[in-house]
């Protein structure tokens, strides 16, 4: 938990905290709400859940009082936090799914009723494939998709900026082949003619 007091030795961050008036917070909320919600929805596929995750993310923004020198990174910060939160939630769902798998003895997992109501099959399938990827790959793809720059991705994933390209290329490939595997190699239909 960020401790406001512990930041006091850094005069700049403290003064930045003062700068972050409630008006400014409101402006950030309005500016970034949609992209944060969309990111939560991409992961969970459930609008009420995404709504809650988005609120939680902004609640954290309200608490942290970011350093003013890094204001341009508020968007990256928000997207990182919401993606993390969403994945935490999905991890819980996955554990539940696995338990249900065990209980129902190999029967295919019943789709979430909410999923059925709001999603088509393709969307559900893409999401399932994404969830099966190594989490770092999935987060990398999602954050890149949400528009983070290489430098922002590097700082989120704590890797050198120079290695982001390689990680991305591998994640693309892994995603593509996992999707093909899940759909029997045909449903993707993205095997471009040259």
């Amino acid at each position, binding site marked *: *938990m960020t401790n406001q007091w512990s930041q006091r030795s850094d005069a700049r961050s403290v003064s930045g905290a*003062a700068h972050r008036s409630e008006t400014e917070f409101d402006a950030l909320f309005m500016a970034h*709400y949609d992209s944060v919600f969309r990111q939560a929805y991409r992961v969970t596929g459930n609008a009420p859940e*995404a709504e809650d995750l988005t609120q939680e993310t902004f609640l954290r923004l309200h608490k942290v009082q970011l350093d003013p020198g890094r204001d341009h990174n508020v968007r990256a910060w928000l997207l990182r936090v919401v993606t993390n939160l969403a994945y935490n939630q999905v991890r819980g769902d996955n554990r539940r799914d696995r338990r249900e798998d065990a209980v129902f003895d190999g029967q295919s997992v019943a789709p979430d009723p909410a999923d059925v109501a709001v999603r088509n099959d393709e969307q559900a399938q893409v999401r399932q494939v994404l969830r099966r990827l190594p989490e770092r790959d999935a987060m990398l793809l999602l954050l890149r998709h949400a528009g983070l720059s290489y430098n922002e991705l590097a700082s989120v994933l704590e890797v050198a900026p120079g290695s982001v390209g390689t990680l991305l290329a591998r994640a693309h490939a892994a995603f593509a082949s996992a999707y093909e595997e899940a759909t029997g190699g045909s449903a993707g239909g993205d095997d471009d003619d040259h």
Partner: protein
Amino acid sequence: MTTDIGTLQAYLDGALAADEQARVAAHLAQCDACRRQVTAVQAAGWQTAALLAALEPGPADLPAAATQLAQLRAELPVAQDALWSRWLRRLNEMRGNIGEHGLIRGTPPALRAGAIGALVVLLLAGMFTFAPARDAMAQFLGLFRVQQFTVVDIDSSARVQSFEDMLQSGILGQPEILRDFGDEQVVADVAAAEALAGYTARLPAELPEGASMAKLSVTQGPHVRLQVDRPTVQMALDMAGVTDVVLPAFDTAAVEVDAPYVVQAEYKVDNPYGERDAGMMLVQAPSPEIDLPPGIDPATMGEIYLRAVGMPAADASRIAQTIDWTSTAVIPFAGDMGAYQEVTVDGVPGLLFEESGATSDRGRERVLLWQRDGVVYGLLTWNVSDSGMLLVADTLQ
């Protein structure tokens, strides 16, 4: 020269340095293998984009941001707007932000009029010591004179807050800055602090176990003048919901405040309650010089102030007569803000505030206020025991 898939990916994303982009482009022009490779990398990227694009919510799923914001605002825990954090914010607003960026240059007009104007104009209301509890730390920066603290009990903090918010809006106009806040100057020891501040600063001779000084600094307060006219003040009171009081007769009035140097000592305390972060901040400043317009009865204005923060008319009238408004920091305090007690500290009476629910997030935060020999002291602590607080306050020298 190799062009691995990572480099190709970065090339496609335009994420390479310009010369590197050019180098890869030149290489691709003459290398079939790499061209095939880059096509494959690009195709995988496109497929990812296409698949992820399928995950977008439908228009009906996307909540209205404004509604969500209102909802979040309604749900923000009280602690977010907590007494101590507001004190701290105000303190930093004045000392750090305004001092650092310049009151005129870098600060938005609303904040300028807010941070300085609000307090100065409150002084106009007859209060040398105008003091909503949450502003007490700001007061340490010297915008008024304190010889004693008095708490007046009110029903709810809501009125204090809305009154304060209204003043913060800059309704009372723009103060004239005769001297800006100084920069915070970090000093090595108390002698250096005194040399800058021009008065005798006191630091604790003893510290609680595990405590050490993190920073000692001196900041010069501002010298400001605010001129307001009677209709403006009347309008502000109307907005505060106080419509049945009669302001003293004046056309325009100028309040001038010359704030002194503030000496601030910050301490880190290791693990007094286990893993929680703990620390203290000791702030001291002599009383500022304040010039008020002549002919205004402080008790009348004090009564108006008490009305504005939500005290019923009869109580306000009675209590206003019992307070020496020329020397008392009046702190309106409601049960929903927390608890306070009168204590003896540093050989004099003091007030110890503890916010309700303050143990939830940062831990136990408290503020101790007292005045001795013309200097006002504030000790803010978080997760420090009673004995630790008293040790610091009682061993000042």
